[in-house]
């Protein structure tokens, strides 16, 4: 049972926290990591060094697997590359062209897409809630969404292990499957205190955390300094991302990360239908390289993973890899993420302290009296000036009116929601007509909300406005927005309705796996990072334990 001895027990089988350098933020081991030749048939080639790919690599490297990770973005040198500045952090995001469509187009880039070693977790806010047990069977319980082929209880030991590795700080958690956290809750700023008082006034329970931010020290990782730039990359090494939690240990166990290398197609042997490796292009070098591998894991997240599969065509898969049943790229989900800010007479200075502080899952489950299925969570956030300006603009203010609201910045505090928007087949990634500099078609992402989604978002916005009113806000401003990504390569029990089986294995290709957020059939109202890591941890355990033989075709009955 974790959480009894706060901060005292570290995770087993992961030395990342000790491998980090106290004086430099560079990823230790970059200069001395293993190097494999393209012609060397490694045990596993992973595409994408983010939450899913990094955990998978770290676990399997510990079991002696020889692994190469192909990563499109750069190796970071945080001391020089990362800054305490919003506009200066542009390079952390996936800013290559993507086309957005549908009735409710989703902004990409800094909103939800990372690029570089460490992936999007380099610039996520830091909230690390678990999914609820109900998220894995929404079809059975509520008649909406989909049932997963696995349950919460399959993931629970991996949630606990990853929470120890990040490590997660927060109060004892009363919602979903009640649990404790390995580190104590952080102190919170005045801006969050005000919101919490409003929630209490309205009978809404909130708790501090859960955040993947060190409270105390953790090996060579120091205590958070509350500078507030979690979304710009943590220069302190206090906030968890694979860069500090899993990749140091992975490199120490023989993993090679080939950064600034864009995967082109995954190749399938004509005979046997097995993946043979990954073709990639290095930045500034047009020649195609091919890394041979015994197995391949695509971990590029909900936009790039479907894009890579869709343009990996072959005689066996003319419509894209694993796309015999037209399932690749479908059921991509985002969460509604409206934010409401309130104005108070006192200066609250919301820029001080991490943006994630206090949250509530009281509205997470279905309550039929609300008039829609599933629910939402409530989380405090705290935009820096550019984010705050976008918030003010969204309420219709520009010019002199915007300047006036902005001058008042220190008097405002902000609370947001995460709505569980339901999976829909037409919310999907396809290939656009435009191509990128490598000649690969760019991704197009279409998104439209259902009536249930709209009702959920409208209801939740009223709840947070009410919290601000109860807290004594003199004025409120609301921005409707979206956050996070999952789906696009979902797991299931039949190829007609899914892309991978319960072992993350692409239907029809025994040695090709997806290990990222794209496999989630539903998303709950929880930030996805922890679940993506836990899923990768479970997959690694099954691969290492031999329950899963990459040389043999998937068994449908076992799924």
């Amino acid at each position, binding site marked *: 049972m974790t959480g009894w001895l706060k901060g005292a027990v570290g995770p087993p089988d992961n030395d990342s926290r000790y491998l980090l350098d106290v004086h430099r933020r560079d990823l230790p081991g970059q200069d001395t990591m293993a190097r494999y030749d393209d012609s060397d048939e490694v045990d596993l080639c992973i595409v994408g060094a983010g939450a899913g790919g990094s955990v998978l690599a770290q676990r399997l490297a510990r079991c002696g697997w020889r692994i190469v990770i192909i990563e499109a973005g750069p190796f970071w040198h945080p*001391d020089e590359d990362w*800054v305490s500045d919003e506009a200066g952090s542009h390079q952390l995001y996936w800013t290559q062209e993507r086309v*957005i*469509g549908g009735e409710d187009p989703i902004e990409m880039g800094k909103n939800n897409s990372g690029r570089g070693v460490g992936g999007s977790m380099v610039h996520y806010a830091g909230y690390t809630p678990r999914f609820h047990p109900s998220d894995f069977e929404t079809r059975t319980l509520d008649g909406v969404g989909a049932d997963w082929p696995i349950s919460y209880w399959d993931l629970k030991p991996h949630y606990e292990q990853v929470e120890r590795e990040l490590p997660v700080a927060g109060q004892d958690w009363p919602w979903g499957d009640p649990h404790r956290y390995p580190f104590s809750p952080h102190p919170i700023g005045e801006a969050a205190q005000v919101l919490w008082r409003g929630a209490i006034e309205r009978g809404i329970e909130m708790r501090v955390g859960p955040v993947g931010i060190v409270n105390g020290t953790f090996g060579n990782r120091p205590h958070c300094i509350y*500078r*507030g730039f979690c979304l710009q990359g943590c220069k*302190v090494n206090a906030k968890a991302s694979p860069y500090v939690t899993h990749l140091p240990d992975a490199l120490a166990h023989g993993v090679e990360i080939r950064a600034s290398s864009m995967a082109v197609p995954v190749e399938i042997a004509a005979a046997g239908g097995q993946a043979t490796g990954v073709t990639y292009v290095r930045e500034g070098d047009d020649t195609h390289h091919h890394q041979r591998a015994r197995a391949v894991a695509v971990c590029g997240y909900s936009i790039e993973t479907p894009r890579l599969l869709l343009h990996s065509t072959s005689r066996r898969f003319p419509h894209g890899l694993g796309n015999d049943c037209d399932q690749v790229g479908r059921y991509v989900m985002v969460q509604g993420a409206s934010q409401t800010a309130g104005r108070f007479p006192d200066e609250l200075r919301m*820029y001080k302290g991490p943006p994630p502080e206090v949250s509530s899952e009281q509205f997470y489950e279905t309550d039929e009296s609300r008039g829609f299925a599933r629910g939402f969570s409530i989380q405090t956030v705290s935009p820096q000036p550019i984010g705050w300006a976008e918030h003010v603009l969204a309420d219709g203010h520009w010019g002199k009116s915007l300047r006036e609201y902005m001058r008042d910045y220190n*008097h405002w505090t902000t609370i947001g929601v995460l709505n569980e928007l339901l999976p829909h087949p037409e919310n999907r990634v396809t290939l656009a007509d435009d191509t990128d500099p490598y000649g690969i078609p760019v991704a197009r992402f279409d998104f439209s909300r259902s009536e249930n989604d709209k009702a959920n978002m409208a209801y939740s916005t009223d709840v947070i406005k009410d919290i601000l009113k109860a807290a004594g806000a003199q004025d409120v401003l609301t921005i409707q927005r979206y956050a996070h990504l999952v789906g696009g390569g979902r797991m299931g029990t039949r190829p007609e309705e899914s892309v991978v089986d319960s072992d993350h294995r692409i239907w029809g290709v025994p040695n090709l796996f997806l290990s990222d957020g794209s496999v989630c059939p539903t998303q709950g109202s929880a930030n996805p990072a922890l679940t993506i890591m836990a899923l990768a941890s479970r997959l690694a355990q099954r691969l290492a334990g031999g329950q899963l033989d990459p040389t043999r075709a998937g068994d449908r009955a076992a799924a």
Partner: protein
Amino acid sequence: MIGRYPDYDVLDNAENWDQATREVVTARLKPYGPLRFFTAQEEPALRALCDVTTGQDSEPRVPVAEMVDEKLAAGRLDGYRYANMPRDTDTWRLVLRGLDETARDRSGAHGGFSAADADTREGIVAGLSDGSLSGGAWDELDVTRAFSVCMRAILAAFYSHPWAWNEIGYGGPAYPQGYMRLGPTAILEPHERRGATSEDPVRNVEGDGS
């Protein structure tokens, strides 16, 4: 720029910032060269649009036009394009052309958007923000989305400038120093300054007090 924090300068604390952050932020204070992305013909409308949307009407100005130009010239895109819209770079050129066309239609001013009087310019930008402009360049754009493309770049430029931070009393970068005084509200970091006044923005802008 006189704000609510008249004796506050975020740069007083710059010596406590890490070097990488200090270089990125102070580079915004250096003089900018001539525009590289926008043409001489587009420049007046660009400057006027940046002025109207950020409420700047006198020197010293935050060099928003130069900062936007630098971003576009360097090809720093935001990572998405609406399916019914051209690329951001083309959107910008169409918007500036549209502003000039509409200004000539409305006021007969030969000089275009920048030569129109303040009320005309405000009215045109209001039409840009609510999507009511039409004809000419506007018919090639989804007008409200074009406004959001421009405002994304304009606001990111304006509110990344230390002068704007001074105006709003923002504490600024804090690495490796950190913030240790998170509340209650009476407690400030040594470099922070309390606001000298405490007016309500809603009353000032939308009420009768303006």
